[in-house]
C-alpha cells in the first residue's frame, strides 16, 4: 500500500500524545498516593490511646512528666523561662540545664479538637440542612422557572467563593458584634459552605427520581407537596443522605473560616459561645509549631481528617453504586 508522505509523523504524534494523557493521569495519581500514603503512615505513628483521650499538653510539662521531675517553668506564666535555653544547653547563669523541649515525642492528644469539630460541624450542618434541602426541592420541582436559574447561580457562587470569605463575613457579623470568638460563629461560617453542597445533591438526587413516579402520583390526583414528601423524597432519601455526609466531610476539613471565627482552644469546651478547638485548626497550628512532638500531632490530626474524608467518600460511592444498580 502506498503510504502518504506524512504518515509516519502522524502515527508518531498519535502515540506520543496518547501516551502523554496517560502521563498526565499519572501526574494526578502519584501525588494523591503520596499524600494519602504519607498521612496514613506518618499519621498512624502519631496515634495512641492518649492521642484520642487526652487534650493539649505543653511540651515542657510533658518532658517533666516523662522523667518525673518538676516542670522547668510554669507553663501558664508567659514570662517564665525567658532567656533559658530550651534546647538542653546550660544557661549562662550556671544553673542546671533545662530538659530539651524540642527533643521529646508527641505529648497530649487531640480529644478537644475531635469534640470541637463534631460540635461545630454538626451545628453547621443543622443550620444548613433546612435551607439546603428545601432549596434543592425547589430547584428540582420548579426547575424550569427563571428564578430557579438565579438560585442555582447563587449556589454556584457560594460553592465557588473562597472559604475564607465565609469566615470574613461571619467575623464581621458575629465576632466583631459579640466581641467574642465562638463555636457558633464557626458553625455559621461552615453553614455558608455546606448549603451549596446540600442543595445541589438534593436537587440532583430528586431529579434522578423517574418522572413516571411523579406522573403516577399526579395521576392519582395527589397535589405536588404530598407526592413530594411521600413519594419523591423517600425515593431520593439515600442520595440526599450521601449528600449530607459529603457536606459534613467537607465542613469538618475547613480551616480558614475557623481561624477567623472559633479561634481555637487548648481545652475541652462545649460552650457554644466561647472559642473552641477543632481538628483542622490543630493540624494547622501544630504544623507551624517549632516542637517536633506537636508536628507529629499535626500528622495525627491530618490522619483523622483524612480517614473521615476517605470513609465518607467510599460510603457514598458504595451507596450511590447500589442505587445506580437498583434503578437499572
Amino acid at each position, binding site marked *: *500500500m502506498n*503510504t*502518504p*508522505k506524512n504518515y509516519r509523523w502522524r502515527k508518531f504524534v498519535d502515540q506520543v500524545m496518547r501516551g502523554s494523557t496517560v502521563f498526565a493521569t499519572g501526574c494526578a495519581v502519584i501525588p494523591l498516593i503520596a499524600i494519602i500514603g504519607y498521612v496514613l503512615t506518618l499519621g498512624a505513628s502519631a496515634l495512641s490511646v492518649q492521642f484520642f483521650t487526652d487534650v493539649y499538653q505543653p511540651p515542657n510539662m510533658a518532658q517533666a512528666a516523662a522523667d518525673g521531675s518538676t516542670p522547668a517553668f510554669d507553663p501558664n506564666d508567659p514570662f517564665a523561662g525567658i532567656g533559658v535555653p530550651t534546647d538542653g544547653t546550660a544557661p549562662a547563669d550556671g544553673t542546671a540545664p533545662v530538659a530539651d523541649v524540642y527533643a521529646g515525642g508527641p505529648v497530649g492528644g487531640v480529644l478537644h479538637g475531635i469534640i470541637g469539630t463534631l460540635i461545630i460541624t454538626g451545628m453547621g450542618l443543622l443550620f444548613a440542612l433546612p435551607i439546603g434541602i428545601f432549596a434543592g426541592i425547589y430547584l428540582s420541582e420548579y426547575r424550569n422557572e427563571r428564578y430557579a436559574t438565579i438560585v442555582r447561580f447563587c449556589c454556584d457562587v457560594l460553592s465557588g467563593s473562597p472559604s475564607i470569605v465565609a469566615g470574613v463575613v461571619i467575623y464581621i457579623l458575629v465576632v466583631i458584634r459579640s466581641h467574642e470568638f465562638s463555636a457558633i460563629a464557626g458553625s455559621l461560617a461552615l453553614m455558608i459552605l455546606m448549603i451549596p453542597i446540600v442543595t445541589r445533591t438534593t436537587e440532583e438526587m430528586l431529579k434522578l427520581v423517574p418522572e413516571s413516579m411523579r406522573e403516577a402520583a399526579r395521576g392519582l390526583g395527589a397535589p405536588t407537596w404530598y407526592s413530594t414528601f411521600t413519594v419523591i423524597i423517600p425515593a431520593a432519601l439515600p442520595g440526599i443522605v450521601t449528600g449530607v455526609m459529603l457536606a459534613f466531610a467537607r465542613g469538618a476539613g475547613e480551616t480558614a473560616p475557623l481561624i477567623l471565627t472559633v479561634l481555637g482552644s487548648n481545652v475541652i469546651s462545649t460552650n457554644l459561645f466561647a472559642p473552641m478547638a477543632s481538628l483542622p485548626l490543630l493540624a494547622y497550628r501544630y504544623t507551624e509549631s517549632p516542637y517536633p512532638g506537636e508536628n507529629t500531632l499535626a500528622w495525627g490530626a491530618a490522619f483523622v481528617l483524612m480517614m473521615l474524608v476517605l470513609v465518607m467518600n467510599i460510603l457514598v460511592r458504595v451507596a450511590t453504586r447500589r442505587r445506580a444498580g437498583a434503578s437499572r
Partner: protein
Amino acid sequence: MSSMTISQLAPFYGARQAVKAVDMQIATQEITAIIGPSGCGKSTVLRCLNRMHETILGASAKGTVLLNDEDIYGSNVDATLIRRRVGMVFQQPVAFRTRNIYENVAAGLRIQGMSRKAELDQAVEEALQSAVLWDEVKDVLSKPGTALSGGQQQRLAIARALAIKPDVLLLDEPCSALDPIATANIEELLVQLKTTLTIVIVTHSMQQAARISDQTAVFMVDTTSGNPIGELVEKSSTSNVFTKPSDPRTESYISGRVG
C-alpha cells in the same frame, strides 16, 4: 477506483455475532445498495468496509475484505489508511461545529498534510463542485458549516469525504434525515459520482435502492435460533432483486409483508 471482495465477514459486538458470515462482491463504477429491515445488520456490514465498525466499544470483525487485492483486515494494515481510501457519510449530516464551510471540507486534506493555500483552495472547490454544493456556498465559505440546511450539510459531508479522493464511498442511510427535495439532490449527485467512484449505500427505502442502484444486497433478520442475527439473503442486480427475487424472504420483504 477499486472493487471490493467481501468473504466470510462476520461482525461481532462483544461475543455476540451480529451478522452471519457475508460473502459479497462490490464492483467499480456501480452503486451497490444494501437494504433490509431494521436490525438486520446492514449498517454494521457497511461500517466493516472501512473499519469504522471497530471504533464502537467492544466491536470487532472476522473475515477478509479485499480492497482491490489487499485485505483491509490484514495484520499490518492501519485502519486510518483504509478510512482515507474508503470514505464514509453518515445518517445524521455532520458539520464540524467550530469550522467554517471551507475548513469543513479542508479538514481531511490538512490532516493528510496539504498546507499550501492555492492547493487547498483548488481541492476544496473541486470537492464542493463534485458534491454540487459549490454554487450555493462559494460566497459564504467562511460561514460556519452548521449554518447550512440539513440537505446542504449532507452534501458538505460528501464533499469532505470526496476531498481526499477516496476510491470507495460508503453512505449509511444518507437521506433518512432529509426532506424529499434534498433527497432527490443527493440521489442525483450519487448517480453522477458513480462514474468515478465505487459507491455502497445503505438505505431503508426500497424505492431509493430501485431508483439509483445497479446492484442490491438484501439483508434479513434470522430469529429462528432465539438470538436475532442478520444475514445476507440475496445479492443480485437491482432489476433482478425487484422483479424476480430468488429468495422467498426477499420477495415478501419487497412486497411489504416483512419489515
